[in-house]
């Protein structure tokens, strides 16, 4: 079974090589099939890796068999395996959905680029997740940034270009800051491998307090920009709302998360718990920013009039939860963060896809124009409703479980007052999700002149969303096992 140790690299390679082959295939059907195939294979391989890791524990993979400090190392624990499974499988489902719809949003000649970019993006994100090497991570970050910009701008509208430029500039500043942080760390330790840095730092960190703090700050802000930490989220609503729906799903569900994973790795693998606990102010700041994000994101979402922007701002709020979990600084917080990453990735992509199909069928993006949509597209709105309920935190659905764990985490962490923040934020969530559902399904004047199921998509096209929802339900139902697994992963992190 040691073959499985090669899988992480194989996955990345498959995706990248696939990406470079794709422009050569002229026919876009081949393109789609090829892209789906590569992502599908990689998700299968991720699954195998997960099984393997679950059985045999964490392993390190030396790329090109160079030994650690010099060569690049991939480190695959349970968490990485789970994340890679998440990334690949969600990406697979999103691509599957995009197969049916992508032509409607972008020009025909861009289709093959789109899939190339998707492959590159997923590959780069996986790289970020797997790698144990700072500089390697930096490169993957830059690659993913460019690919992410690519899948936004592929729509080729005025707004897209502007949004992309904004995203590009901000995220390159962000990566600049990350690089600066790396420089500080490197100047202290002379190493780029996280495990080694950790060893060095744990002996000498007292001497370099300022440098460590500065680099921590730089990492926080740099990655904060990329993962839309409030108030550095300014690029997100524009980018997410203007991109093609599948891209939005991809961006919101996956791209943001990879950087969070990297951030957690930096905090706990590179600096280590010992150092982090020396500077409680950092985690507290993250906690506060997370709480602010939870509340402000929701409030801003309430104010929006464009449905995709609503969901984009909801992402801001959900990222707030994730940072909140990190900021709690205890195991439960971290576990909940991971669980929330899973949950949010699945649900948010489902939301973007359902909204995407509504917009596609009606041609309307504004909330008021989408009133009565439940009559025309009952199933789609039904799927939207389930996702929305999960977002709000109705029990059994995964959203509730993660929120609940956050609450437990904050009580256990002695920060009971933040439970209130969680609850307020859930209520605010309800405030912007429910009106969409209610106005969609009910209301006499809304439904006038609408024909039942007149605009419904075929079941075939809705399958991907259905798969996502089922996945979410399973996630909710078997949350116990998954949380256990994550906790195991967090312990060996």
């Amino acid at each position, binding site marked *: 079974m040691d073959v499985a140790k090669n899988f992480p690299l194989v996955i990345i390679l498959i995706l990248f090589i696939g990406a470079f082959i794709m422009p050569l295939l002229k026919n876009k059907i081949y393109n789609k099939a090829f892209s789906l195939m590569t992502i599908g294979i990689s998700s299968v391989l991720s699954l195998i890796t997960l099984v393997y890791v679950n059985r045999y524990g964490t392993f390190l993979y030396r790329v090109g068999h160079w030994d650690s400090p010099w060569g690049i190392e991939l480190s695959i624990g349970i968490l990485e395996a789970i994340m890679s499974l998440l990334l690949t499988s969600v990406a697979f489902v999103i691509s599957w959905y995009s197969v049916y719809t992508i032509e409607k949003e972008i020009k025909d000649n861009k289709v093959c680029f789109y899939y190339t970019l998707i492959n590159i993006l997923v590959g780069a994100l996986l790289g970020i997740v797997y790698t144990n090497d700072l500089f390697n991570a930096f490169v993957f970050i830059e690659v993913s940034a460019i690919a992410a910009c690519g899948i936004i701008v592929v729509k080729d509208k005025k707004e897209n270009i502007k949004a992309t430029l904004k995203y590009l500039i*901000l995220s390159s500043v962000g990566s600049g*800051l990350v690089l600066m942080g790396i420089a500080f760390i490197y100047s202290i330790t002379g190493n780029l491998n996280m495990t080694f840095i950790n060893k060095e730092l744990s002996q000498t960190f007292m001497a370099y307090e300022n440098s460590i*703090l500065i680099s921590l*700050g*730089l990492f926080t*802000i740099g990655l904060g920009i990329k993962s839309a930490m409030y108030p550095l989220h*300014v690029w997100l609503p524009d980018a997410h709302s203007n991109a093609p729906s599948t891209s939005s799903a991809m961006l919101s569900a996956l791209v943001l998360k990879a950087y969070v994973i990297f951030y957690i790795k930096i905090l706990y693998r590179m600096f280590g718990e010992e150092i982090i606990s020396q*500077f409680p102010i950092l985690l507290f700041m993250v906690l506060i920013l997370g709480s602010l994000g939870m509340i402000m994101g929701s409030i801003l979402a309430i104010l929006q009039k464009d449905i995709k922007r609503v969901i984009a701002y909801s992402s801001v709020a959900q990222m707030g939860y994730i940072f909140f979990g990190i900021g709690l600084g205890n195991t439960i917080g971290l576990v909940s963060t991971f669980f929330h990453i899973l949950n949010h990735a699945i649900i948010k992509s489902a939301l973007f896809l359902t909204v995407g199909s509504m917009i596609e069928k009606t041609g309307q993006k504004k909330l008021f124009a989408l009133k009565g949509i439940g009559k025309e597209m009952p199933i789609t709105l039904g799927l939207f409703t389930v996702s929305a309920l999960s977002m709000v935190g109705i029990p059994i659905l995964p959203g509730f479980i993660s929120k609940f764990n956050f609450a437990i985490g904050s009580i256990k962490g002695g920060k009971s007052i933040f439970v209130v923040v969680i609850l307020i934020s859930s209520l605010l969530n309800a405030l912007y999700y429910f009106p969409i559902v209610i106005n969609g399904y009910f209301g006499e004047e809304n439904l006038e002149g609408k024909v039942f199921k007149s605009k419904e998509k075929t079941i075939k096209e809705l399958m991907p969303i259905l798969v996502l929802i089922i996945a979410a339900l399973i996630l909710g139902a078997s949350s116990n096992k998954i949380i256990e697994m994550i906790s195991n992963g967090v312990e060996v992190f």
Partner: protein
Amino acid sequence: MIYKNTIIAILLLPMLGSLIGWLIGRKSEAYRDTFNILLTGAEFLIINLIFKRIATGPVELFIPDIMGIGLSLKLDIFRYIFIWVTSLIWFLTTIYSTQYLIRYKNRNRYYAFFMLTLGSTIGIFLSENLINLFTFFEIMSFTSYALVIHDEDEYAHEAGRSYISMAIIGGLILLMGLFLLYDYLGTVDIRPLSMAMKDLGNIKYLISALLIIGFGVKASIVPLHVWLPKAHPAAPTPASAILSGILVKTGIFGIIVVVSIMMNGDMVLSTVILIIGFINMFLGGFLAMFQRNIKRILAYSSMSQIGYILMGIGLIGLLKEHNAIAVYATLYHIFNHALFKVLLFLCAGVIYMILHELSINAIRGFGKHKNILKILFLIGLFAIIGMPGFNGFISKTLLHEALAEAHHMYHNMWFNVAEVIFTISSSFTVAYLLKIFVAVFMEKSDKYKGQYKHHLKKRAMIPMVALSVVIIYIGLRPNIILKVLEGTMVLFNAHEHIEPHFYNIHNIKSSMITIGFGFIIFIGFISRYLRKEENGEPVYVNPSLKWFSLERHLYIPVARFLYRSSSMIFKVIDRGIINLVMYVSNSLKALSGIKVKKPSKAIENLKIKKPNVLVRKNNKNEFTTFSDILEILRFNLNSLMYGVFILAIMIIVVLGILVF
């Protein structure tokens, strides 16, 4: 066993009869009338038949599970008196009703409620358990309400409102008393209560006060009498007759139970009741003189007579072991009052039946040539004023003697005052009845010259005649009743046996003096001050209308004030949360609508370099509203510039916090 069933029967008979009668009445009115007469007749008959059994000892009955606490009934001689009178009066008024109501609407409803009222009244008198009593009491309030507002006109509704609201409030106060009673003693059975109450501290006064107030509303004790003068004239005459004759007695029954039985004639309480009795008797009589509506006069008269009864109840307590005379007096008067007051009401009813008018001014001289009616009315009059030879004389004499005995016992100067009030009130009685009699039956009128004879049917006459006969009979042979009353002595812990001689000089003299006073008052006051000449016609005026009215000037304003003020408070609370939200949002809206001078410097500085976008309205208007600025701000915040700016701030802040 058979007697127990009989008790159930006399309780259920009217209730079932009401339903059956209603059903019959939907098909045929004549059959219904007959049915009702038969029913009440049967009821009366049954009650007569069981007298022998009751005379030997009380019959008790307990049916568990009903209303949780069980239905506990008891029939002893004390209750029997009430029940007998009730069934008699009901029987007679039912007969009378069949004639009286011919031209009325909703007859079917009337009879249904009439019978229900009978059933519940009997229930009240039978109950041994205060909760049962309360239950029947409330049922009676509601069923009699339907009788009071039978006319459904403005005046009836107004009266009905007073009646029902006072009845409900009274009922609830009574209930409060029951709550406390049960809470402290754990029982509501009357007999055990009389034992248990002794050991209770001062709370027993609160309890009995609450109970008395509750019953007092029905008994129309001052100041809870306000419904009475309104309700009696409003109801159809048979209904007013039973209201006055019987329903008021349910309140009295309750008060007797509370004061004399439960509290064993507690001194304090008895004194209070005594005082209330005097106020009642004086005030009722005094106000009656001013009234012009016959029924209203009779209503106030009821109030005054209730005062006598209350006085009797008070004396039962005050006289302690010598209270036998007071017991006799009280019960006798209750009995008598039912008879003569009903007779008087029925007479008034006859007038109303014919003329649809009750004001003395309008019916003046109506009875000049109606000899039968005149005689009947006169019998009632003599009875009530205590003319020797009529039953009123007997009970008044007894009452007077009881009062004298109390005076003798306590030697308190207040009893002198009491004597005076007693006499004056009796004179008032004479005066106001004379007012009716003179105006209606003596004065001449051009309008009425003996017509309408055919209107008076036998069915209306028989009850009145029957009543007159009874009145005279027991007036002449008082001992029949007294013998019956003897059976109640045990209940009141009275041991003496009295053999009073009524027809002696002393008694007749004092009666005559009273009547004489009455004449003087009538001639000296009523004829002189209340009778005015208008357009050559004598007209009675009622100055008391302008006087202070408890209801108009006290109860209603106070209630209204309480209602309004509490509504205000609660409305605020009710809308509180919503209003708060509305207020905040409105103020935000208002704020956003405020016109401000051109975007302030702060906002410009935020952008560092003044962006052209801010003035995209080409400076058309110098002023922009706050919401405009917000709009522009929001737009700008979305820009790349802002993003970078935030980024810079964040870097500085985060690094600053971390490093320093």
